[in-house]
């Protein structure tokens, strides 16, 4: 019985893995072919990877874009982790009627499509540019600020906190820790997997963010990777081999971040809970 379950598990997971990876593999294959091969649907790898790479680095400013994306994503993730977890924790641990009402109102902010917020946000930053140009339009801060705190993350941290053993916190208070001390010394280390998940999600959404950076960034040297890729695909005769190569390079950091963080999902971390 256990064996059957085991076999089924491996077969199912393998099928899921293949379905999930296949497009990614196709992307890698395409990066080794020429544009005309890609449009004709070639499935086998070719010898053009080096050529595509050189073309990519020569004609497009990949490195600055990668750096821009990295700076923005890392800063956003760090700030988001801090501010959102403090809030999620606060809403759950220090529950009160008033706070619950505030929380429900905050959730509303998730419910409006970004396209509707874009124009007013842009106008707001335009106004900011008059008095504080260093965080106004066409600055990295203007990209980061609206995306740091989301009700989504606060919601996630709050829900995760619900499963947290509250008596651990009491123990901390009895030991003489301040509330912040309890948060940093007891809560954060225990919630490693939650932070790992949140970090991955935030980094990824920041890295792939398209509409807002598109609209608020003007100088080409400030461009992020998604903007770069969009440009590549837009000419009347795009070079698909190069495009796939650049996309590959652009996807690597998020894959890397995930790979680094995912070891925190190791089964049986019962040790730290005790």
């Amino acid at each position: 019985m256990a064996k059957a379950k085991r076999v089924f598990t491996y077969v199912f997971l393998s099928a899921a893995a293949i379905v999930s990876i296949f497009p990614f593999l196709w992307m890698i294959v395409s990066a080794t072919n020429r544009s005309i091969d890609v449009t004709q649907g070639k499935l086998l790898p070719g010898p053009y990877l080096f050529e595509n790479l050189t073309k990519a680095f020569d004609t497009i400013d990949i490195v600055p874009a990668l750096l821009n994306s990295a700076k923005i994503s890392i800063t956003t993730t760090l700030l988001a982790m801090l501010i959102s977890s403090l809030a999620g924790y606060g809403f759950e641990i220090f529950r009160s009627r008033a706070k619950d009402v505030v929380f429900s109102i905050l959730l509303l902010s998730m419910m409006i499509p970004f396209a509707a917020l874009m124009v007013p946000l842009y106008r707001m930053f335009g106004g900011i540019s008059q008095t504080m140009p260093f965080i106004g339009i066409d600055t990295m801060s203007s990209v980061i600020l609206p995306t740091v705190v989301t009700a989504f993350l606060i919601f996630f941290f709050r829900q995760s906190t619900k499963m947290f053993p509250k008596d651990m916190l009491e123990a901390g208070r009895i030991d003489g820790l301040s509330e912040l001390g309890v948060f940093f010394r007891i809560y954060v280390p225990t919630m490693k997997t939650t932070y790992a998940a949140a970090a991955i999600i935030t980094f990824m959404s920041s890295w792939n963010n398209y509409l807002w950076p598109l609209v608020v960034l003007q100088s080409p040297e400030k461009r992020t990777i998604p903007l770069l890729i969009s440009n590549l695909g837009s000419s009347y005769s795009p070079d698909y081999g190069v495009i796939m190569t650049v996309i590959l390079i652009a996807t690597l950091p998020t894959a890397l971040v995930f790979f680094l963080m995912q070891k925190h999902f190791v089964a049986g971390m019962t040790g730290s809970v005790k």
Partner: protein
Amino acid sequence: MKKMIAALLAGMLMLTACGANDNAGTGTGNAGGNAGNGGAASKITVWAWDPNFNIKTMNLAKEAYAAENQNVQIDIIENAQNDIVQKLNTGLSSGTTKGLPNIVLIEDYRAQSFLQAYPDMFHPLTGSFKTEDFADYKLGPTSFNGEQYGLPFDSGVTGVYVRTDYLEQAGYSVEDMQDITWDQYIEIGKAVKEKTGKDWLSLDPNDLGILRVMIQSAGAWYLKEDGKTADLAGNAALKEAFETYKKMMDANIVKIHSDWSQFVANYNSGAAASVPTGNWFTPSITAAADQAGKWAIVPLPKLTNNPNSVHASNLGGSSWYVLNVDGKEEAAKFLAATLGSNVDLYQKLVTEIGAIGTYKPAAEGEAYKAASEFFGGQEIVQDFARWTAEIPNVNYGMHTYAIEDILIVEMQNYLNGKAIDQVLADAQKQADSQIK
């Protein structure tokens, strides 16, 4: 406690570091909108799409201008066309001019929308160049309220690219495709499909460009002369265009594609034998080097039953506009001196880019008379330039894309059996309620 302060400080530090970096950059960033004072070194920013066509054009224009005007710095920024439309709309509607360019390329179908939605945001170019030097049909879309706002740029003049080898196999020649009607075009297509198994053309159900081509050839459009009222129900040209489209689909000579790259691939792979489209498609055809000598370009067919229809029409095409931000006079001067009057520049555009402008005097130049080996020695530029002069002038008006989306839905209904008069009547009703 210490950890939190440390984390917060790290965060703030990064934010200010980003800010500091940007300060160094803000200098140049700001100047995007301001061109400085009078004769001092000034800066012009240009937004356009497509590195191989429009951007290259601007680079050539910049070179031509730099010779005489050392103290003007021209920054050409490339963005995808849809991105430009988004950024422009957001920027123009926000009331902030920071970050807006001086010169921007806008597709002719959209131009009126911009000019009318954001009055006061465009700088009139009236008088800075001779409008009579440009093809007639470009002047309507680029002007508003009696003022000329756009400098006409590329010609979207259409022709039919056709595989001569498939044609011959079907028993036809290039001569048989000169000055024909759409019905005749379809007949030839059926023969080609029968004898070679190749589809005659490739269409995207989400893009009714071919309808636009057909109706403009008859001097009609989705909108009436005023550019605001939908003209669908009583539009004879549109009705015939719909019927022709259905005939093509019913004759089973159409290969469906849903994506630009598939469109190009269908021709590069030899799966389809002809394509009625704009001359900007040439580089996509010539990309398949193994097909050299097997293509020719013939004139556009005309609508069978429409007396106004001619063998010329337009698909796409854009023009350059100057925004009403600091630096507008410099920008206008730049455009006028290069694309507004420089015949040599236009020759370069043809030889180095394959871009055919709408500047009439340029057609006298050498490059316009060159023969193309790929197209069997045909003087394609000369042909395109000649057809450009015949394109009927229509007012694209404000709502082309909105109406087309309505027509796309109705076309599906029509292909599924709904009666044509009902189709157009329903479309008219929807358009009237949606367009305010």
